[in-house]
């Protein structure tokens, strides 16, 4: 257990990434405000990206931009995670734009952003007759 904790301390970046991920996940699941849900989604994705980018980092490495006269001694970090995270960031911003558009529509239609309230409103309407 102590060894595990030591390892976790050494992998502190990963631990922080998991913390971000948890906060975002909880916001996405439990926050009732639709807008905060979207922000939570972004934070959760950032956590995943941080986790992925940490995997590419090499202590003492340099960014993988080859200088024209590169010496042999230079060690470059792994470019793969950076590329994958770049893909992920683009996906994430597209998703949040889509979610925000949904948010705007929901608010314009039902005048509320509260998800629980939204469901209540719907069941209320259903009891009242045809929507």
């Amino acid at each position, binding site marked *: 257990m102590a060894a595990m904790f030591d390892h976790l301390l050494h992998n502190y*970046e990963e631990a922080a990434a998991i913390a971000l991920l948890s906060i975002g996940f909880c916001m996405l699941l439990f926050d009732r405000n639709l807008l905060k849900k979207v922000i*939570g989604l972004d934070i959760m994705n950032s956590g995943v990206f941080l986790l992925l980018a940490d995997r590419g*980092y090499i202590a003492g*490495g340099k960014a993988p931009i080859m200088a024209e006269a590169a010496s042999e001694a230079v060690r470059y*970090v792994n470019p793969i995670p950076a590329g994958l995270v770049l893909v992920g960031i683009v996906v994430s911003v597209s998703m949040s734009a889509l979610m*925000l558009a949904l948010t705007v529509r929901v608010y314009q239609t039902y005048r*509320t952003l*509260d998800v629980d309230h939204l469901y209540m409103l719907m069941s209320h309407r259903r009891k009242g007759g045809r929507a």
Partner: protein
Amino acid sequence: MTVFRVILLIGLVGCAIATAIVRKPMQAVIIYSAFSVVLAVLWITLEAPDLAMTEAAVGAGVTGTLLYLTLRRLNLIDQDEAHREKMREEADEHGKV
């Protein structure tokens, strides 16, 4: 370097928690933009300048703008829980009609 990175990480987690607990949506949006900027700096310490540029432009810039515009569109710029209660009642009326 490690100390710097730890400070950034603490700032990042702090921003995330703050986003989760603030009441006004506008505050959450502003803190989220700050979160993105901190993340961009963190990408540089991780030797990923491509990511830093993209995060600064896309995460802090475009996503922040879109969030702000959403608030603007919904007229929620400076409103908090009390106002939302009022809106909720209004919505109930709206639902009954």
